[in-house]
């Protein structure tokens, strides 16, 4: 329990105590508690680690900590023994005793349980030597896998709230804004607006009350870095908001967080209570003249509420409908008062900038995009998870260098960036340096950092239809171009994927897309044409195959596909027989099987289990 911190020296004393406590321990076993690892059974693993540590009476010298997401979700549940950082992937409770006995007690790695590099086939002991981690630059995520998100002491021990003290006692609000501005930080939520400029406008806006808002309504499908930051290091987000409050002159903050993220809601709530108890929220924080507190609001499951004006409407208890952009939220935001909204990752960057300075931060990245960016690398890729790299890293380095390429020897087809209204980038653009401006030039966008890898089995027309359907569902309906435009585009894409496309459909898609881009009220409609235009631009041949030849080359669009069994390849192993829910596959063992195609619902279950490629789809 941390005492009430009434001054910067109180903070430093508390930090020294926390660090001394940590230094006195001989080891810290961190068990990843991210969503991926939870689904893989990490809770039982953590319990077993605690039991094995207790059985050896080591509780006083060994910390067992369930941390936030380590990022390497593919390998979960992950256990890392620190300070030596020996990394164990896919840990089961049965293996825990060995790890505790040999690595924690005797300080040696358990060779057979170590991560095996899929390329070199060599065992790698240390976390930092695994290519997935060694090719990253983890600044914002630096502490996610090492600290207990429920412990303020842990955050203090790694330097937490030092940047706040600096901003309160060594800098004027103007200097804080100047640092953030000069760092080149741009909003991580999607639009990439310069953060320092936003803060300066909000500070300059007239009115006695200003709000600081954290957008944690991470709605982009395929992105989960904000979730992981809030779950794994909530105090960092809070510290960023406090520094923002100091710079802008705000006394009240809000966090708007998705209700689909119960663990993030919980850990944030714990952090807020701890901060209040320690005097890091409330009146006269650390003895300064800053008074600030934060309220939490849970989102109602509407994608459009990630848009800043819709989010503020939702905070006011209204339906989440955006409004026209010419009225700026920095002047007329929540309850018509000046409001400064940034997303979770942006706030988490702020302590880093104040602590290490604008020059340090600006030395990372490209001309127009500074610092690092967290991407969620998912889809048809080996090493799925969260990766943090400097802005300007090429797509190839991310997808192949860190991600390890495509599984099952399939061919890379595209990587989709920028959320539902982003775009699909083809193989020939793999050398593209990833930053805000390059992605926009290529017809996609940064969005919040989702990177969904697609292989030869992905149909690009189906992908466009998928995004448009998502956007059509989530369009709030307030403005006509978005509401009716998306409906039209969806109808056209659906008929194309059903083999009823018309010769001039592509022209129609492009025309309606241009109208949506020009005339929509908010960014949802304004960027909704991207998934269609980027797939037409780079994968025109797939549209042609659907429209002209009534064929889906990837074998995805059901109406254009039939299933059958290749007599050359089927060896009668029988794997596919039980997975067919309708019992349509029959045959004697070790003899050619048959599939009753007339009643087949094309669920694809047989195709997925056959490891001889004997199920024909086309």
């Amino acid at each position, binding site marked *: 329990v941390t005492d009430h911190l009434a001054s910067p020296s109180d903070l430093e004393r508390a930090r020294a105590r926390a660090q001394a406590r940590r230094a006195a321990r001989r080891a810290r076993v961190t068990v990843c508690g991210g969503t991926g690892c939870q*689904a893989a059974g990490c809770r039982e693993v953590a319990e077993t680690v605690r039991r094995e540590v207790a059985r050896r009476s080591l509780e006083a010298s060994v910390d067992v900590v369930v941390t936030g997401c380590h990022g390497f979700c593919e390998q979960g549940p992950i256990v890392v023994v620190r300070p030596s950082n020996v990394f164990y992937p896919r840990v089961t409770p049965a293996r825990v005793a060995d790890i505790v006995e040999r690595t924690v007690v005797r300080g040696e790695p358990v060779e057979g349980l170590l991560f095996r590099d899929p390329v070199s086939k060599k065992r790698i002991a240390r976390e930092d030597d695994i290519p997935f981690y060694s090719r990253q630059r983890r600044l914002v995520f630096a502490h996610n896998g090492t600290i207990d998100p429920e412990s303020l002491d842990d955050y203090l021990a790694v330097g937490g709230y030092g940047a706040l003290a600096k901003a309160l006692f060594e800098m004027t609000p103007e200097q804080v804004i100047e640092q953030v501005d000069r760092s080149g930080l741009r909003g991580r939520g999607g639009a990439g607006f310069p953060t320092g400029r936003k803060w300066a406008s909000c500070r300059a806006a007239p009115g006695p009350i200003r709000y600081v808002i954290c957008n944690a309504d991470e709605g982009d499908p*395929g992105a989960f870095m904000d979730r992981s930051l809030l779950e794994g290091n909530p105090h960092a987000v809070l510290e960023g908001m406090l520094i923002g409050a100091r710079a802008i002159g705000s006394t009240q903050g809000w966090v708007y967080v998705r*209700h*689909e993220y119960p663990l993030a809601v919980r850990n944030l709530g714990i952090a807020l209570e701890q901060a209040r108890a320690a005097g890091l929220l409330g009146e006269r924080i650390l003895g300064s003249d800053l008074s600030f507190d934060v309220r939490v609001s849970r989102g109602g499951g509407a994608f459009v509420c990630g848009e800043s004006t819709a989010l503020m409407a939702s905070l006011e208890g*209204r339906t989440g409908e955006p409004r026209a952009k010419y009225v700026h939220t920095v002047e007329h935001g929540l309850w018509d008062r000046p409001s400064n909204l940034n997303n979770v990752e942006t706030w988490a960057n702020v302590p880093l900038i104040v602590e290490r300075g604008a020059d340090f931060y600006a030395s990372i990245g490209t001309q127009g995009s500074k610092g690092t960016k967290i991407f969620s690398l998912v889809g048809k890729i080996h090493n799925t998870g969260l990766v943090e790299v400097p802005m300007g890293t090429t797509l190839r380095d991310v997808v192949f260098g860190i991600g390890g390429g495509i599984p099952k020897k399939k061919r890379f087809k595209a990587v989709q960036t920028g959320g539902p209204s982003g775009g699909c980038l083809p193989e020939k653009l793999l050398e593209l340096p990833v930053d805000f401006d390059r992605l926009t030039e290529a017809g996609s966008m940064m969005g919040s950092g989702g990177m969904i890898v697609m292989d030869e089995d992905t149909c690009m027309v189906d992908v466009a239809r998928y995004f448009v359907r998502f956007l059509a569902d989530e369009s709030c309906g307030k403005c006509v171009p978005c509401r009716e435009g998306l409906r039209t585009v969806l109808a056209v894409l659906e008929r194309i994927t059903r083999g009823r496309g018309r010769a001039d459909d592509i022209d129609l898609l492009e025309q309606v897309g241009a109208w949506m881009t020009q005339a929509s009220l908010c960014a949802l409609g304004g960027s909704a044409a991207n998934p269609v235009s980027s797939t037409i631009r780079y994968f025109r041949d797939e549209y042609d195959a659907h429209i002209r030849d009534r064929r889906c080359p990837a074998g995805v669009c059901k109406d254009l596909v039939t299933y059958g069994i290749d007599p050359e390849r089927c060896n009668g192993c029988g794997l596919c027989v039980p997975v067919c829910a309708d019992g349509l596959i029959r045959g004697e063992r070790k003899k050619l099987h048959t599939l009753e195609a007339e009643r087949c619902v094309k669920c694809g279950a047989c195709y997925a289990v056959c490891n001889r490629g004997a199920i024909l789809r086309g």
Partner: protein
Amino acid sequence: MGACQPPRSIDEILARHPPERSSLVMVLQDVQAAYGYLPVDVMERVADVLGVARTHVYAVATFYRVLSLEPRGRHLLRVCMGTACHVRAAQRILEAAERRLGVGDGGTTPDREFTLQTVGCVGACAIGPVVQLDETAHGHMTVPGVAALIEGAGAAEGEP
């Protein structure tokens, strides 16, 4: 949801939030969690206590996906349709669940055991395709896997 127990009565729910319009979405979420849906008389009570028009409560109740005017099943089976799940064939998982339960997206089985819902993304993209049964996410889902999951949840319910 989260660390605290859902409250049981409407008065208890209203007491936990300031009686102002900005509490509306949160209050309705708590009602949804406690009752499984938004009963009409409860919505009217919420309107009166928070001092907002009933039409406004109705507008909000029908805007947000998490809120429902119809009673939901004992189990909520959510199929993630996020992009990462989509490219790993989430559509087939959804169809398998629909076939197994005999209801479509948003439907509730006649015995009120299951409500089936799609969700834009549950943020567990690395382990897709994902199905969330009540509060637990299940990764690397397959067509036979989702049928087994439904079977298992139904069977557990049938035990004395």
